[in-house]
């Protein structure tokens, strides 16, 4: 076998994987979204070609409101992850090489416990009689501390906590590769540490920032478990709307239409952004 055909074979594997586990299910979801709800059949869908489900998403303001609210929550949480994750990644990248594996291990460590249990643990921390309030009362800092659980703050906290490793790891990967001699050069040329950071480190770590933000932002938009457990009733998110369509109304076609719109509205801008990035990288080279 020539090296070219073996290379093709290697590339074919991920493509086949994508086709079977992404494109095919996506086609099925699209087919359902174009059908109509038929609760008396199994599965509850009458196939066809109807844009009614998509039209409904724009006539009822619920869907747009849920979408915008999800975007806002995801954006705030992503920013939180970035502000917290960047110094962490920076510190790990600047630690002695012998210590780095240990620090990285600590970042990944929470994954060894079930995600659900970790989110539940936050309920124990943030509830009315939770550990945080107990501490505040015990220490005399506050007699009537409010309850964070059930507010949007709790959702942000939960998302930042759960997704932080996805921000730290790609940031670490870029920061670790950063050539330290560039910073020395900047310093030799009279740049103060802050100026050197802003003009050298930050721009060079941009790919890591983008990758980390996407890894956090995309799943956070569709997040269902964290807002359900930590959020209040008024926290409107698209994941919950989708759940209601699928399970409460058992309207698979409308649920599928919501899913398709979610995907298109997320993937579209991101693909464009990626292309811009690739172009500007080419230009830089």
């Amino acid at each position, binding site marked *: 076998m020539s090296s070219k055909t073996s290379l093709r074979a290697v590339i074919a594997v991920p493509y086949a994987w994508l086709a079977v586990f992404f494109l095919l299910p996506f086609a099925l979801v699209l087919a359902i979204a174009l059908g109509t709800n038929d609760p008396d*059949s*199994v*599965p509850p869908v009458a196939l066809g070609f109807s844009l009614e489900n998509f039209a409904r998403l724009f006539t009822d303001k*619920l869907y747009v409101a849920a979408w915008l609210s999800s975007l806002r929550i995801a954006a705030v949480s992503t920013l939180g992850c970035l502000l917290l994750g960047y110094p962490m990644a920076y510190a790990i990248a600047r630690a002695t090489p012998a210590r780095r594996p240990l620090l990285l291990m600590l970042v990944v460590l929470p994954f060894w416990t079930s995600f659900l249990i970790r989110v539940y643990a936050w309920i124990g921390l943030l509830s009315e009689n939770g550990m945080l309030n107990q501490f505040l009362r015990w220490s005399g800092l506050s007699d009537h501390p409010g309850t964070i659980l*059930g507010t949007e703050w709790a959702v942000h906290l939960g998302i930042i906590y759960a997704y932080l490793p996805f921000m730290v790891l790609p940031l670490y990967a870029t920061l670790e590769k950063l050539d330290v001699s560039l910073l020395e050069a900047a310093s030799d040329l009279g740049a103060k540490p802050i100026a050197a950071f802003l003009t050298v480190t930050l721009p060079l770590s941009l790919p890591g920032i983008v990758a980390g933000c996407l890894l956090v932002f995309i799943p956070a938009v569709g997040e269902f478990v964290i807002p359900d457990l930590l959020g209040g*009733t008024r926290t409107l998110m698209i994941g919950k709307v989708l759940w209601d369509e699928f*399970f409460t*109304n*058992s*309207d698979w076609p409308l649920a599928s239409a919501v899913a398709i719109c979610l995907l298109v509205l997320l993937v579209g801008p991101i693909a464009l952004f990626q292309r811009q990035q690739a172009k500007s990288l080419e230009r830089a080279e």
Partner: protein
Amino acid sequence: MRFSLLAVLVSFATPAFGQGQVNVYNWSDYIDPVQLKDFGKQTGIKVNYTTYDSNEILDAKLKSGQSGYDIVVPTASPFFVRQIAAKLYQPLDKLRLRNYQNLDADTMALLGKYDADNRYGIPWMWGTIGIGYNATEIRKRMNNAPVDSLRMIFDPATVSRFTDCGVMILDSATDVLPAALKYLYLDPDSKKPEDLAKAAKVVDAVRPYIRKFHSSEYINALAGGDICLAFGYSGDILQAKDRAAAAPEKRVINYNVPNEGAMVWMDVAAIPKGAPNIDNAYRFLDFMLDPKVAAASSTLTNYANGNAAATPLLAKSMSGNKSIYPNADARSHFYTITAGNAAEVRERTRLWTAIKTGQ
């Protein structure tokens, strides 16, 4: 219409078919394990007993096609009703069930609202939807609180007194809107938009005093003292009561059936269409209808069962407990609701979302 490719792709792991076995899909901890073992020993039938913890999982499995199960135990409303409409079950041949006459006539009549003439299902466990509260905290804030009335939840002047110690309500349009209708002395089963609008107004008026609408969180929250009042399922609140009593703080949690009338929830055993082991499915149903089995399972779960012959076999602490087995007067006010068509279901869900989120 059917399209099998979807069914194949969406269907999850399916239990093995074969002779001499029965595939039972049930809630966890819902049948006495000792009795279950005996059934296997006496009949030689191998019981493949798998469990789930949410109706949604069962619903999705049944709706995506051939599930391979012989017996499933969905909650009557809104799941079992909808599954009947989707023709997912086969009618029961009652002549094949020797123990059928053990069933309680009143329970069967309530279930009949969902399943006309009890064609498809037999009642397994049931309970009510009512008021759970922390007795100490409620008394501290209101001496003669109407703890056995829906006013506790739906009267703004009453419920607002408990905001500071925390109030939770089920996140379920099919459970809460009928109760709000009942509170207004309207037909809880009404699907009229003007009636539902009135019910929505009731819930909307108390919303500022509700910490959260959620269908399970109140168990831990009541037991742990994070809330002092909940509108929820009897079984869940009794579970919170037990947990609270076992904890060092010894919180006293009580459950009351609202005197205006309580909605009854019920879990129903049924045979899905295409069940691979029909004969054994009937034998298993007959086993579930055995008073001994029903009584042992009620003792395990703390729920009432739909088996009249099982009541005398229960400990007095159970059959005499009016939060588990309410008295005849409370029972005469029990109600259940019909499912409604797809448009009505959508309207109700939408109304509920609007109440909760203001959208």
